[in-house]
């Protein structure tokens, strides 16, 4: 710690902090025009100059990049400094066109504000006009370089944080400006970070043009509803309509957003949104009243239950339900329907990853906070293409790589963008990442690179683990995978020797086999090297959708009640039965896969699908379609008429995430509150529908006064949430486990030990073989950063920037098949299914792999997939 005085205020700051940071801590405002806490100080505007007196000498220096030192006396606002700043502002104004009356940034422009604050007079010298390029052709963002003050923040955030480097200073001297190569329109991540960081109006959001200015918008902060990172959003409304989305720099995500969070919201205004319930009459869906719809559902489910028993009913929830809704849905299905046939898509995808974690460590969730990744010295990515799946977490890896010189070890069947960072790339066939992890582990143990204390004192089962790894020598695994054993060894050494190391797994609907061997291997590796229970260490699992973690916490599974209590556990069941005022069956119900099998063979007759679209996203499309066709009664609750809703007997429209309250739990276990914009609600919140349905089915006691009442019930039965309340969640969220009112959350798990005593190392499965078939290709259903499940198809903005795309293939394969970019190929599966689409050469595709995004219903990619299969063998022909 160093102690200094700023404008008479004494303040103690961390060593290495800048004078600017110290001032912020002391509550003293120093003007800046080229600084942002996310960026490396640049020192070009010199507005932040301060007078520093140390050892009897006074000097003037920029505060943003000079370190605070012990005993400094800093003055930030002397008349001399004010004069100097005033002159600097005048120099900026010399060539800055004063278009304030028509500029998008007017009223929220840092230059304008400073000119006002410093009472800059009429310029005493001539103004200068220069002409720079403007760009109105890029998606979402427009550029007017005549307004640029050359602070460089856009260029820097694009490179340092996003890792995209789409912008550069071009030209030299007074002619230089920010642009792309040859001034082409943007072709980038479209994260909009450049527009959000620009202190003036040079880069701005197109939506605001002619609509409204930032300062006059009515703001609501809420949580992003796309991926599971839980970025906080600020919705800006004008005349009751959202026109602008940004994020506060004080949020956990520091104001960073990806394209979905920042520009994906127009789905809420889509013309295709359902506003009234639909009921099937004479074969077609027609609009009806809520009363009739609810009554129809209640009667029909009631009748099926009566005639064929409660287990002829089944329900699927979603990772997009709030915690409160998932909890009440759980109650509805188990106590009102009377069945445990309850699951959701995360039940086969995300769950297989977390399932590896819970028995070994204690909790089924990521161990550390997302923002700690930036300080890790090694990052091991296991099938985690974060640039596409979780863009904001990808930024953390850019930071670790560039600023901490972290080694980035990518184990994947896609040549991901992060694999070009300093480190190692180990290519594996789809679903074989665990082999690499096990052989790294074997090499680390054999080579004595392990952390003995962690193994001996904090874990058990080492001998069994060691025995199970017998065949996993780097040489063996390298031979099986066709890799160089030295690469495995080097990667293992880098991870083991790094002072801090994180392991990241991501999960999506594109992976539907059992991933628990991989997550177990990852946990073994972290435990054996001692990379757990510390800052910037641990194992991260990133689920696909916003409430992936919460859906599991709230027990949207056939056998786990909220809080991971098994339905088989009588004590737990009794507690829930008393609370929920109803009986819960004692044996586990059907999983999603079994529900569809059950529907096919007639044992499931009524299905309630809430917030999911199995027809387009579940494995084995043929089976799903067939199964739905056989049901007596299908109810779908959704915002849109999805392919699944189209087959329903009743469709219940729900409100959009931006119209709702409740909480989501992010991948870092952060429970955050949603707040509705003032926009009128279309459809109904899921919670309300659940309550009316329960009442319709004769259980009016399933009723809550609101979301916070549900949360207090959750706190009573879900141990990790026991200290959670809406007041405590506040603006920043609360990280579980939060055990009582005093507890302010637990950002890092297992710092003081494991709730299960010692961590349990898990034996590896036998090595097995990997098929390396020739003459055929493997299909990889992949994720694109512009989309999220099949849901984002309803967002016109995201479809505009990323329309149903292309198959990506390696250059070698394209040449072999005589293909040019844009040629159409036919993909034929082993099951005879075929689709045609255009192909492009891509560096991401390794030889023998065909990457196709799975977001687009028109591609019907799930015709090729099946439950439990790790790889999809296909034939590819030129069409």
């Amino acid at each position: 710690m160093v102690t200094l005085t700023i404008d008479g205020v004494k303040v103690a700051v961390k060593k290495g902090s800048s004078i600017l940071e110290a001032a912020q801590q002391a509550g003293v405002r120093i003007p800046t025009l080229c600084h942002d806490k996310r960026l490396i100080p640049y020192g070009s505007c010199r507005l932040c100059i301060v007078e520093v007196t140390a050892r009897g000498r006074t000097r003037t220096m920029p505060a943003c990049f000079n370190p605070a030192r012990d005993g400094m006396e800093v003055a930030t606002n002397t008349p001399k400094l004010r004069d100097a700043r005033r002159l600097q502002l005048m120099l900026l104004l010399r060539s800055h066109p004063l278009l304030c009356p028509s500029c998008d940034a007017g009223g929220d422009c840092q230059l304008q504000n400073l000119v006002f604050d410093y009472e800059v007079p009429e310029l005493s010298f001539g103004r200068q006009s220069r002409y720079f390029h403007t760009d109105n052709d890029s998606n979402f963002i427009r550029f007017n370089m005549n307004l640029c003050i050359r602070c460089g923040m856009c260029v820097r955030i694009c490179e340092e944080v996003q890792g995209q480097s789409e912008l550069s200073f071009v030209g030299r001297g007074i002619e230089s400006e920010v642009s792309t190569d040859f001034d082409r329109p943007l072709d980038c991540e479209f994260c909009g970070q450049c527009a959000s960081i620009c202190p003036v109006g040079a880069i701005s959001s197109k939506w605001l043009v002619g609509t409204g200015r930032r300062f006059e918008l009515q703001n609501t902060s809420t949580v992003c509803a796309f991926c599971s990172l839980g970025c906080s959003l600020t919705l800006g409304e004008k005349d009751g309509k959202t026109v602008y989305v940004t994020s506060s720099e004080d949020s956990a995500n520091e104001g960073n957003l990806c394209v979905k969070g920042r520009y994906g919201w127009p789905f809420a205004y889509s013309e295709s949104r359902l506003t009234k319930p639909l009921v099937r009459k004479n074969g077609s869906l027609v609009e009806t009243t809520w009363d009739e719809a609810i009554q129809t559902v209640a009667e029909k489910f009631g009748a099926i239950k009566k005639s064929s028993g409660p287990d002829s009913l089944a329900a699927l929830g979603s990772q997009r339900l709030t915690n409160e809704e998932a909890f009440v849905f759980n109650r509805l299905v188990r106590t009102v329907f009377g069945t445990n046939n309850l699951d959701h898509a995360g039940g086969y995808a995300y769950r297989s990853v977390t399932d590896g974690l819970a028995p070994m460590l204690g909790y089924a969730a990521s161990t550390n906070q997302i923002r700690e990744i930036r300080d890790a010295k090694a990052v091991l990515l296991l099938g985690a293409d974060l640039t596409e799946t979780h863009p904001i977490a990808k930024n953390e890896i850019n930071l670790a790589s560039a600023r901490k010189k972290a080694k980035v070890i990518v184990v994947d069947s896609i040549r991901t963008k992060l694999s070009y960072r300093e480190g190692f790339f180990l290519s594996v066939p789809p679903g074989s990442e665990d082999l690499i992890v096990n052989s790294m582990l074997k090499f680390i143990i054999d080579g004595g690179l392990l952390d003995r204390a962690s193994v001996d004192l904090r874990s058990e089962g080492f001998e069994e683990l060691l025995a199970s790894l017998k065949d996993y020598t780097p040489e063996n695994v390298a031979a099986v995978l066709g890799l160089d054993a030295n690469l495995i060894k080097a990667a293992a050494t880098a991870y083991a020797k790094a002072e801090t190391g994180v392991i990241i797994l991501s999960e999506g609907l594109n992976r539907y086999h059992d991933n628990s061997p991989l997550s177990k291997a990852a946990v073994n590796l972290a435990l054996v090297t001692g990379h757990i229970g510390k800052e910037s260490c641990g194992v991260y699992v990133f689920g696909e959708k916003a409430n992936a973690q919460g859906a599991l916490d709230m027990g949207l599974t056939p056998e786990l009640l909220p809080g991971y209590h098994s339905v088989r556990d009588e004590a737990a069941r009794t507690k829930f039965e008393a609370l929920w005022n109803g009986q819960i069956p004692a044996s586990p119900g059907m999983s999603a896969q079994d529900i569809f099998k059950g529907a096919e063979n007639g044992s499931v007759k009524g299905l309630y699908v809430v917030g999911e679209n199995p027809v387009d996203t579940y494995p084995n499309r043929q089976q799903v379609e067939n199964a739905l066709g056989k049901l007596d009664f299908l109810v779908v609750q959704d915002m849109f008429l999805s392919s699944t809703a189209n087959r329903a007997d009743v469709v219940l429209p729900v409100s959009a995430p931006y119209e709702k309250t409740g909480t989501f739990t992010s991948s870092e276990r952060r429970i955050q509150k949603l707040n509705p914009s003032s926009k009128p609600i279309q459809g109904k919140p899921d919670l309300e529908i659940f309550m009316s349905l329960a009442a319709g089915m004769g259980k009016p006691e399933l009723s809550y006064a609101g979301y916070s009442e549900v949360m207090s019930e959750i706190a009573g039965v879900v141990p990790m949430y026991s200290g959670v309340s809406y007041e405590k969640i506040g603006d920043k969220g609360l990280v579980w486990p939060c055990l009582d009112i005093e507890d302010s959350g637990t950002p890092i798990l297992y710092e003081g030990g494991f709730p299960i005593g010692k961590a349990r190392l898990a034996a590896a499965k036998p090595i097995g073989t990997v098929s390396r078939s020739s003459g055929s290709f493997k299909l990889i259903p992949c994720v694109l950063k512009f989309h999220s499940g099949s849901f984002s198809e309803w967002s016109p903005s995201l479809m505009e920037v990323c329309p149903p795309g292309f198959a990506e293939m390696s250059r070698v394969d394209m040449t072999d098949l005589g293909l040019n970019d844009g040629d159409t190929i036919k993909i034929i599966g082993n099951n005879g299914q075929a689709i045609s689409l255009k192909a492009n050469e891509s560096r991401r595709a390794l030889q023998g792999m065909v990457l196709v995004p799975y977001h687009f219903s028109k591609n019907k990619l799930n015709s090729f997939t099946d439950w439990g299969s790790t790889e999809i063998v296909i034939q590819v022909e030129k069409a």
Partner: protein
Amino acid sequence: MQERDALLKKKVQDSVEQIPSDQLLLLDPIIEKYQGSMSYLIPALKEAQETFGYLPMEVQRKLAKGLNIPAPHIYGVVTFYSFFTVTPRGRHTIRLCLGTACYVKGAKDMLQIIVKEVGINVGETSKDGRFTLEAVRCLGACGLAPVMMIGEDTHGNIIPSATLGILEGYQ
């Protein structure tokens, strides 16, 4: 004067002719040589310019891909150093001063002669690849007005009718 301002804003034109893709193969050895390190961008660009004479879009994009350096970054470097050019250039670059002193003292007439006799206007390169013409603001040698630079040589106090004679010295 308006006409002059327009001329001064004119940059050397973008290349219209595409470099045929088989010629782009000439970049492969350069990419091979400098792959893997961002620090060698400048030598790589220099060699590429020596190969093609200039660095058009196709060349820059191929280098970007091959060297794994973002294309905007390469463009930023290319436009920063006056040594690099994105357009084909003649063997000699004529920089004709159109600053006020030179303009009134005959640069205007010199320009007309060049347009007529050499057949190029500002921003253009002659068909035979001999000259590229650029208009510049005051070269800081108003005492010698009108002033014209050819390559590194400065010519001053030019009588417009002598323009062609001076150019004769540059083949």
